[in-house]
């Protein structure tokens, strides 16, 4: 880097960090100073109502995590063991779908399968069983959290299993190690190192889950902190309680983040097929039967709700929906916010990464520079510390005296969506930029390439794919967000998820089905566009 470039990178980092700190800091400040927050909030922290909600939040997160991890393990083991069969790559792709899928759509799909009049209960009733499954309440929340997090856990575990040296399988085959020995001496040691990180991540996601609990939770008995905050503000208008719940949520996320730092973060660098792997243990009949069963169940569990959404959506009156101005207004609002939030998020991630690289490139950075770099590195955690609904609550309270929030609402939703996606975007952008720099920096410098020329000829072609992928991911996340919009929504601001949610609330379920399909198609289109150039390396022929 030239001195000018370094200065620019540092300035960008300072600017980004200041913006993020201001946006988060003001919200937290509002929470802390809200009319007499100090005394009454502290006492509210201990009242039975909040404690019950806290207990339920942690309980459902714990159970969701245990179920997701425990059920993902056999699926990942089966995928790792069966190397070549028709559709393997599609199962791996299916595992990626819930990550980009708006939560609301997943919830609708789950209702269609497991709901009161869903396929499962119909079948059970037909079999003469009296007690159908009740999806509303803890069972539904767990089901939905497993639906969204099992694939995540499975992908991360599969990455770990694929990293096992190919020779291990030849050695175990030659030694004749039975399945139990293979698990005990090869598979489990590989997974053991990953499980705490994966479990921590999922626990974090489940403890701050909003939309699923809002839709599938069953009244006050099955409510999490996030949803309770929302209900306090929107329905009971009890800002005092919202504040204490929000502070409690921050304490909880801080605790989880602290716990997470103890373990290596799970790596999600795509599933690459390196050396061909020969799994003789997968050729035994018993192993095949088991794997086929496990994989079929997993595909049904993940695929049926998605298929149900597509089917129900196709049955809806799509031309009528597409003819409504409200749909187009909501779509335009959603896409503008998503595009704005996506671009801002990617820019912030790039600025932060560049500033950190500029500091790392100096041989002896000053202490203040090292501190600054560390702070930049902690931005992701800072953002995770204050979940979207808490952030929204802070800003809601801040703007409360002003009365009308409708003017600022889109800006705030955009800001919240930006921060919401930032940790994920950084995880895509930072390693890509680091790899790009290692590949090109010295050559570019020796050729004297700089400024616009380097951007056009070197940086953009090299970074295009990861940046587009990060953008599409951030946009999909924003498009599916209900938390921030729910607080500021109402008449002034209607996004697609909000429109979908309100149609669901007014029992216009066919409309909701149609909207879910449309929203799902938009997100799918974005994901395909974002990952178009990215080739998933297919299994190479074994030699």
């Amino acid at each position: 880097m030239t001195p000018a470039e370094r200065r620019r990178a540092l300035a960008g980092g300072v600017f980004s960090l200041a913006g993020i700190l201001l946006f988060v800091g003001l919200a937290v400040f509002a929470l802390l100073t809200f009319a007499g927050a100090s005394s009454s909030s502290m006492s509210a922290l201990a009242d039975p109502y909040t404690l019950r909600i806290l207990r339920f939040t942690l309980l459902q997160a714990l159970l969701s995590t245990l179920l997701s991890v425990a059920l993902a393990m056999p699926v990942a083991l089966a995928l790792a063991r069966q190397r070549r069969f028709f559709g393997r790559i599609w199962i791996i792709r299916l595992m990626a779908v819930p990550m980009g899928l708006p939560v609301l759509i997943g919830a609708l799909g789950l209702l269609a399968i497991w709901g009161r009049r869903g396929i499962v209960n119909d079948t059970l009733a037909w079999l003469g069983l009296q007690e159908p499954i009740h999806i509303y309440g803890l069972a539904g929340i767990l089901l939905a959290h497993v639906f969204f997090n099992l694939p995540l856990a499975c992908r991360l575990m599969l990455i770990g299993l694929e990293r096992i040296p190919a020779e291990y399988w030849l050695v175990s085959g030659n030694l004749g190690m039975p399945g139990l020995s293979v698990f005990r001496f090869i598979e489990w040691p590989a997974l053991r190192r990953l499980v705490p990180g994966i479990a921590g991540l999922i626990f974090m996601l489940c403890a701050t889950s909003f939309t699923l609990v809002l839709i599938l939770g069953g009244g006050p008995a099955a409510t999490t902190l996030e949803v309770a905050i929302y209900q306090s503000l929107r329905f009971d208008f009890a800002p005092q309680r919202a504040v204490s719940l929000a502070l409690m949520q921050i304490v909880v996320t801080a605790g989880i983040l602290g716990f997470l730092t103890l373990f290596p973060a799970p790596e999600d660098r795509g599933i690459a097929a390196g050396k061909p792997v020969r799994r003789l243990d997968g050729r035994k009949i018993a192993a095949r039967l088991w794997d086929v069963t496990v994989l079929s169940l997993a595909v049904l569990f993940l695929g049926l709700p998605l298929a149900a959404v597509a089917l129900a959506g196709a049955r809806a009156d799509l031309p009528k929906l597409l003819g409504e101005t409200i749909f187009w207004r909501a779509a335009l609002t959603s896409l503008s916010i998503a595009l704005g939030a996506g671009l801002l998020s990617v820019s912030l991630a790039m600025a932060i990464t560049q500033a950190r690289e500029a500091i790392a490139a100096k041989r002896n950075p000053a202490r203040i520079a090292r501190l600054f770099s560390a702070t930049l590195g902690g931005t992701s955690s800072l953002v995770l510390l204050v979940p979207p609904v808490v952030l929204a609550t802070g800003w809601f309270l801040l703007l409360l005296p002003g009365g009308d929030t409708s003017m600022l609402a889109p800006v705030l939703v955009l800001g919240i969506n930006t921060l919401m996606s930032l940790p994920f975007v950084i995880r895509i952008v930072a390693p890509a930029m680091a790899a790009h720099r290692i590949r090109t920096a010295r050559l570019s410098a020796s050729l004297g390439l700089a400024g616009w020329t380097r951007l056009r000829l070197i940086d953009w072609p090299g970074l295009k794919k990861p940046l587009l992928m990060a953008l599409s991911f951030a946009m999909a996340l924003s498009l599916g967000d209900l938390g921030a919009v729910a607080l500021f929504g109402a008449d002034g601001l209607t996004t697609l998820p909000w429109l979908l949610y309100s149609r669901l609330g007014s029992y216009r379920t066919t409309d909701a089905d149609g909207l879910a399909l449309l929203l799902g198609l938009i997100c799918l289109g974005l994901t395909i566009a974002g990952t178009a150039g990215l080739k998933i390396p297919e299994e190479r022929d074994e030699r």
Partner: protein
Amino acid sequence: MSGDVKTGENGAGIALDGVRLRLGTQDFDFDMALPAGKIIAVTGPSGSGKTTLLNLLAGFETPDRGRVLLAGQDVTALHPSERPVSLVFQDNNLFSHLDLFTNIGLGISPRFALSSADRDRISAALARVGLAGFEKRLPPSLSGGERQRAAFARALVRNRPVLLLDEPFAALDPSLRQSMAALLQALHDDTGNTVLLVTHDPAEVRRLADHALFVSQGRIALSAPVDAFLAHRNIPEVLDFLGS
């Protein structure tokens, strides 16, 4: 050493009888009979089929046609663990998160159910390869040469009449290769096993082999006692390999 069995004389010969195999677009066609109780070098250019030959013998690959014979027994349909072979690869022979005792113990019992006699055998095998007292060491704390010695120790406790080695010394520096070759020779002299050694190094052929193969384009281009192999002048590829 317990369990030393002289298998050389009673014929752990290796034969591929009209073996045909198609992998992707490449055809393999192996027909050979090799002497028992000898060290046999397998040479040939990359991608010629050396590793496929080894995989056929170890049971990781099954032929489309033909028979695989080890020690006079037809093993074509047998699972790798049922074949009378031990394996040593270039790398990753040991499970890196398990100590040497466990790694070698799995060679005796794949369920890791060991008697006290088995435990003594493990320690004796480690001592035999020059790693006495290394039972509790983890593979990453060892040098590359020490890791290969431990792999030899596992082959020793397994006590199978055929030992297959896929470029076992390729990752080691030249000075170390000589001492490892000496160890391999000594173990071979102890047990009288049949050793099949894939190698890229003509010096290794001269130093160790009694017999040598040259594999080219999925076929055995030359199979001869080592003196005849080294003196061979008709195949240009072999001359290239020998560097003469």
